[in-house]
C-alpha cells in the first residue's frame, strides 16, 4: 500500500501545461466512440451481465488505459472493440462508422504470443498487408521499415520460436502497425514479460506512440503501467463491469521512470488503488503464524 504522505496532492490538480494539453486533446476528433455498450453472457444460472452501459470516447492520438479489478470485463470490452465479440446492446463507432466484426483498421496486440510460428518475422509483419490485397514487392520494403523501427532488423528472417518474449511482442506491435490501423488495441501486452523487459517495453511503446500518429487503447492491471503510459485512465468496477471513473493523468509529459515517485504520480496511483480495492482501507485480518525455527537456532 502507498504510505499516506504529508505532501500528498489532489490527483485532480493539473499544472497549466497539463491543463492546456487536455484542452487540446479534447478538441481533436473522436477516433473511437463507445456508446452505451452492454454485454450479457448466457450461463446455466441465467444471464450474467459482463459489461453495463459502457460509454466513452477516445480522441485522436490519445493514449488511453483501461484498468479494473479482475472480472470487471476489461478483456471483454477490448474484444468487442476489436470485433471478436458482439455487444448485446449499444454501438461502437470508429471514425463515426459502426464496427462490425474484426478488421485491419483496429490493430490488436494480445497478451499471449500470437505470432504465426510458420512465418518468419518479416513474413509475420507482411501478413496483414498481404491479406488486404497489397502487392508483395511494396509491402516487403514497408515491413522492413516496421521491423527496423522495433529494432529487429537482424532477426527479420528468424522464426518466432527463436525470439524472446519481449522480441515477440515487439514484432506483434510492428505487425499490427503495418496495417496502418486507426487505433491500436493492446490487451495486457506486457503481462507475460519479466519486470525488466516490461519496463523497457513500456518506454519503447511511449517512444513509438510519440513518434507515430497513432491512438492507443491499452488494457492493464498494473497501476504503475497505467499511470506511466496513459493520458486518461478508464477505471472499471466489477459485477457488472461499469465505468467507475475516467481519470485525467496529471503527470506531465514526456514521461520517465523518475516520475514514479513524483507527488502527482503517487496521488493518481493512490486514488485508483482506492477505487479498485476499497475494502483495503482498514487493517487486514489478523494472521497467526506457526513457529518455523527450532530451539537452539541462532535467531533473535
Amino acid at each position, binding site marked *: 500500500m502507498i504510505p499516506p504522505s504529508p505532501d500528498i496532492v489532489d490527483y485532480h490538480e493539473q499544472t497549466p501545461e497539463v491543463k492546456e494539453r487536455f484542452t487540446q486533446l479534447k478538441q481533436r476528433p473522436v477516433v473511437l466512440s463507445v456508446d452505451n455498450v452492454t454485454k450479457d453472457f448466457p450461463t446455466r444460472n441465467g444471464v450474467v451481465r459482463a459489461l453495463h452501459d459502457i460509454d466513452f470516447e477516445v480522441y485522436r492520438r490519445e493514449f488511453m488505459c483501461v484498468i479494473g479489478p479482475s472480472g470487471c470485463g476489461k478483456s471483454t470490452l477490448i474484444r468487442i472493440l*476489436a*470485433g*471478436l465479440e458482439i455487444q448485446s446492446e449499444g454501438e461502437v463507432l470508429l471514425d463515426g462508422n459502426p464496427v462490425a*466484426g*474484426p*478488421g*485491419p483498421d*483496429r*490493430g*490488436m496486440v*494480445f497478451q*499471449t504470443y*500470437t505470432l*504465426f*510460428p*510458420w*512465418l518468419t518475422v518479416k513474413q509475420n509483419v507482411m*501478413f*496483414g498487408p498481404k*491479406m*488486404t490485397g497489397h502487392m508483395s514487392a511494396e509491402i516487403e520494403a514497408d515491413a522492413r521499415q516496421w521491423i527496423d523501427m522495433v529494432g529487429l532488423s537482424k532477426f527479420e528472417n528468424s*522464426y*518466432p*520460436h*527463436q525470439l524472446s518474449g519481449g522480441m515477440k511482442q515487439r514484432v506483434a506491435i510492428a*505487425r*499490427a502497425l503495418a*496495417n496502418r490501423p486507426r487505433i491500436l*488495441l493492446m490487451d495486457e501486452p506486457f503481462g507475460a514479460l519479466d519486470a525488466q523487459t516490461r519496463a523497457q517495453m513500456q518506454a519503447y511503446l511511449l517512444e513509438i506512440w510519440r513518434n507515430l500518429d497513432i491512438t492507443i487503447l491499452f488494457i492493464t492491471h498494473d497501476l504503475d503501467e497505467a499511470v506511466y503510459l496513459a493520458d486518461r485512465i478508464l477505471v472499471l468496477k466489477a459485477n457488472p463491469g461499469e465505468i467507475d471513473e475516467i481519470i485525467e493523468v496529471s503527470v506531465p509529459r514526456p514521461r520517465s521512470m523518475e516520475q514514479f515517485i513524483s507527488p502527482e504520480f503517487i496521488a493518481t496511483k493512490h486514488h485508483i488503488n482506492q477505487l479498485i480495492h476499497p475494502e483495503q482501507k482498514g487493517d487486514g485480518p489478523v494472521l497467526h503464524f506457526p513457529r518455523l525455527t527450532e530451539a537452539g537456532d541462532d535467531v533473535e
Partner: protein
Amino acid sequence: MGESPSGKKLKVKEPWFAVRRELPSHRASVLTAISFILPLLIWSAVSYLPFLWHPDIKLQLSADRKDVTTVYTAGDRVSKEFFPEFQEAVRSQNEELEAQLKSDDPLAGSSESSVRRANKKVLRHLAPVLESNGWITSEQTKEDELIYEAWKDVATGKRKLKSPGLSEENIEIAKQNWNAMSAVSPVYDSDNFISVPLLSLVPQGKPSNPDYLPAPHHVASSGLEVLMMPAEGDRPSMVQRIGHSIRIVFGGFLLSALIGIPIGVLCGTYAFFSRLIEPFTDFFRYMPAPTFSTLLVAIFLANDAPKIALVFVGTFFQMVLVVSNTTRGLNMNLLEAAQTLGAKQSQLLTHVVIPGILPSMYNDLRILLGWAWTWLVIAELVGVKSGLTEFIESQGRYRNFDLVFPVIILIGLIGFFTDQFLAFLRGIIFPWTKEGEAMSSHPVAKVILFIPRLIKKAFSSKTSPAPTPQAGQP
C-alpha cells in the same frame, strides 16, 4: 565453483530414476541400444541354453514300433515326457526279438521277404546320423552300400560317429546287427540280404524348442535366403512381394489421406461439416474393416483393388476424426490475431488453419501409416492371397517357421525405418518447429532444403518474364 571447501571437486550424482526427467544423452543412447539387444538376448538364451525351456526332444535317430501307425523320423520333435516311453517301447521290442531269435521260430511266422524288407528299413535308420556326421551326403541317404559299410565301421570300431555319437546301447546293437549281417554277406547285397530280424536302434535325440521358435542363427541364415528368393514360374520373387505389399499399404493410405485430410480439415474448421460428417464417421469406425472384405471383393473384384480398399476402410474414418481433432487443436488466438490483421474467413483456412496444423497433422499421418501397415496382412488375405502374407501363409502351413520369421521381421523393419525417416524429414519440412531448428544445420537437410529453393527460382523466372514495353502504357 564446483569445488567443496576441502578442495575436492564435487561430483553431482545423476539419478537413473527421476520422475519426468530426461537422462543424459549417453545414457539415453545406451538404453536405446539395450532396448533392441535385450529381446535378442532373451531369444538367444531361450534358443541356445538347453536348460531354458526346450520342452521337446528333436530326434537324431528314430525307429519304427511294431503295430504303431504313428511314425517318427529323424528331425521330428516329440515331447520330453513321451521320449522315454518311445525309447522303452523300442527296447522291449528288441528284447522280444532276442527271445524270439532264441526260440524255434525266429521269423515268428512272417515271410523271409517281409523280414528282409523290414531289415532294410533298420539299415537305413542310421542314415540321418551318418549324414550329420558327414559320412554321407544328403543325396546318398538311400545308397544302401555306403550305409552297409558304415554299419561295419561303427560295429568294428574302425570309425567313430561323433556328432551326434551313438549311445553305448546302440553301439552294442550295431555290433550285434553287424555280426548277423556280415555272417550273411560282407558287402551289401540286395538279393542276399539278411532274412533274420535285426534289432532296432533305440531312438536318440537332444532337447529342443518347438519348431515355431527357430534359433536366431537359423532365422538369420534363412533370412538371407528368403530375401534373395528369385521368381519362379507364377511365384514372384521376394523383392517383388515386398514391392507389392508396399504398394497396397501406401495405395490405401494415400487414397484415404487424399480424401480424409480435406474432410478432416473442413470438419475441424467449420462446425457445419463437423456436425454433418463426424457423428456417422464416429459410428462407422467401430465396424471392423475386415468385416467388409467379402463385400469389397464383390465390389472391386479380384487383384489389388479390394485389398487397397480394405486398407482405405481401415484408415479413412480414423483419419477424418484425428485430422479434425488436430485442426480444432489449433490455437484460437492465432485465428483471432489473423482476423484483426484483416484476414477474411476464406483466407483463414488457407493462410492460418492449414499452415498452422501441418506439423501436428504430419505426426498424425505417421501414426496412421502405422495403422495402415497393421491392415496389410488382412488385406493380402482378401480375394487372391498375395505379397508377403501369401508367403507367410504358405510357409507357415508347412511349419517352415524359420522362413516365416524373417518376413515378419522384415515387415517390422520396413515400417520402423519408414517412420524413423519420416520423423527425420519432419524437422526439414518444418524449419519453424523446435526440431526444425536443430535440423537446419544437418548436411542432408541442407541438400533437401536446396531443392524447393531451386524449384522456386525456376518457377519465378518462368512466371515473371522480363517486363517488355507495351503499347498504350504511360
